[in-house]
């Protein structure tokens, strides 16, 4: 794979940066595409709107479209973009640390841990305590998901740690734990009441249906804190691609740097999953798509995040409109959309 990067040096006094032009260009272009897709998402739906109606709906509180734009379509689209960005960023970090393009938050036990916890919660509380199910649907599920994701990650991290953390062992332990969690999840689904498990299934597939500002805010807050921190860690992450002895000899506190970056990846994935369920494939494919488009040696963090937002937003647009009025869970579309594109990029690189 060609990794020749055209980089320009930017120097101001004692400050200096190295900008990889292609990565910057792809990031800016991706943001433009994202804006376009978001705008389309505002217009298209059960009630089609013109651009003028969308603008009126956004800024004029008395407009009939105000509720549809500001309470239904915008929060949903923002949740999708933010969740996609968080998942992609998480995937980019994990793939760099595991030195493995197949690694994703699923490997860290986050998404599978969240799934088990949510299904357990839904099955346990559903029809037996009918009264709590309403509360569970609005408040409980994100909290359960967050808790399950963090527990899952702690289990994987604890089992993989042995006088340090080895990327290869992390992937193997992660796959094993994910298999166990997945089977526990299926077992819970078989013992649960049919109505409860049907609700749980929608969440497991990853859905943006009915997402409001209460889903936008936690994800936005998490990204606002974690994105700058991970970008500060980019250089350590870049060094971590080498074997541990090399990394340490270059003056990186190897285990600390790796632990902090994994913690950031876990939090990003856990928050995203809490908002929208385990949306498949975004965390796996976005960093690899970004890496190939930017032609860099490792998944570029910011560029991956933007690609993740684009992929999820495009998938949601299709999920809402393709089989209208029937709506697909977005997680199904991300896989159908992302996989062929990634295969295309890999296939083109082989030639």
């Amino acid at each position: 794979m060609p990794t020749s990067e055209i980089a320009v040096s930017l120097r101001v006094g004692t400050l200096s940066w190295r900008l990889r032009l292609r990565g910057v260009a792809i990031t800016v272009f991706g943001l433009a595409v994202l804006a376009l897709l978001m705008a389309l998402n505002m217009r298209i739906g059960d009630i089609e709107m013109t651009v003028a109606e969308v603008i009126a709906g956004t800024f004029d509180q008395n407009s009939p479209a105000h509720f549809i734009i500001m309470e239904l379509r915008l929060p949903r689209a923002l949740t999708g973009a933010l969740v996609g960005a968080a998942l992609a960023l998480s995937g980019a970090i994990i793939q760099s640390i595991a030195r493995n393009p197949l690694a994703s938050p699923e490997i860290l036990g986050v998404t599978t841990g969240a799934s088990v916890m949510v299904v357990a919660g839904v099955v346990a509380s559903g029809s037996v305590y009918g009264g709590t199910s309403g509360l569970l649907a609005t408040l409980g599920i994100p909290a359960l998901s967050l808790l399950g994701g963090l527990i899952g990650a702690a289990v994987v991290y604890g089992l993989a740690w042995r006088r340090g953390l080895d990327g290869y062992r992390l992937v193997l332990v992660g796959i094993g734990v994910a298999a166990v969690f997945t089977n526990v999840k299926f077992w819970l689904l078989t013992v649960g009441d049919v109505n409860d498990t049907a609700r749980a299934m929608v969440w497991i597939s990853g859905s943006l249906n009915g997402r409001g500002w209460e889903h936008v805010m936690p994800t936005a807050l998490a990204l606002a804190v974690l994105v700058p921190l991970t970008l500060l860690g980019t250089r350590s992450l870049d060094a971590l691609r080498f074997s541990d002895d090399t990394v340490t000899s270059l003056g990186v506190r190897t285990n600390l740097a790796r632990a902090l970056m994994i913690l950031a990846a876990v939090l990003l994935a856990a928050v995203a999953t809490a908002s929208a369920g385990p949306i498949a494939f975004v965390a796996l494919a976005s960093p690899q798509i970004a890496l190939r488009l930017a032609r860099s040696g490792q998944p570029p963090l910011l560029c991956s995040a933007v690609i993740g937002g684009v992929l999820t937003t495009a998938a949601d647009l299709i999920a809402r409109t393709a089989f209208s009025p029937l709506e697909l869970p977005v997680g199904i579309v991300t896989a159908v959309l992302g996989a062929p594109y990634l295969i295309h990029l890999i296939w083109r690189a082989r030639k």
Partner: protein
Amino acid sequence: MSPEVRLQATDVKLGYGDRIVVDGLDLGVEAGTVTTIIGPNGCGKSTLLRALGRLLKPQGGEVLLDGKRIDKIPTREVAKILGVLPQAPTAPEGLTVADLVARGRHPHQTWYRQWSSDDEGAVAAALDMTGLADLAERPLDELSGGQRQRAWISMALAQGTDLLLLDEPTTFLDLAHQVEVLELVRHLHQEAGRTVVMVLHDLNLAARYADRLVAMRSGKVIAVGSPHEVLTEELLGEVFELDAKVIEDPVAGTPLVVPIRPRSH
């Protein structure tokens, strides 16, 4: 006046978990010398080198760098004084020589100073010194073993340290490339006054390119001294369990080991 000691291991106990490889070892590395550690497989040579380069924390005793405990100095500060080239290092796929060598600047960089003119100059100088300037844009995987090893040494040079620890820098290389790498090490030492500690397997090359030899067996230092003092027929028997004849190297005048047979137990 005794020469300045840059690295000092005192009564170190080294191992991995419960498996102790080195126990109660003392060794000092003097400024401006090439020290080469020799010994049979599994004697703890690489373990000792990793401890000297703070890649392995001693379970007992201490390692001093310029008189200070190396584990008390921030690892980034250590990286500005001491460069380590681990055994058979691996690089990410597709990385170019220039990218690899640029990585050596890591300890000198921060998020707001990512690529200063100092960095650029040090990388260019390191590529020049190792004769890789023409190959700078080539991916590492396309180079020969000798060129690749020179690229790794070049990275350690770009780090700008005057202490270099090299763990078997000639492994997997044919004889011509082994000599090529060791000539580079000698050049670094003679022209730039760097202090070098390395682990080598080939006794004859070790004798030719080292000021001081350290012979180890079972985690203990058996002998330290000039190649003439260390490489004796008696010591080869004791350390390597090898019957051998030691003659004078007709080219360099250093001891030349001619093996006869392994000693039977």
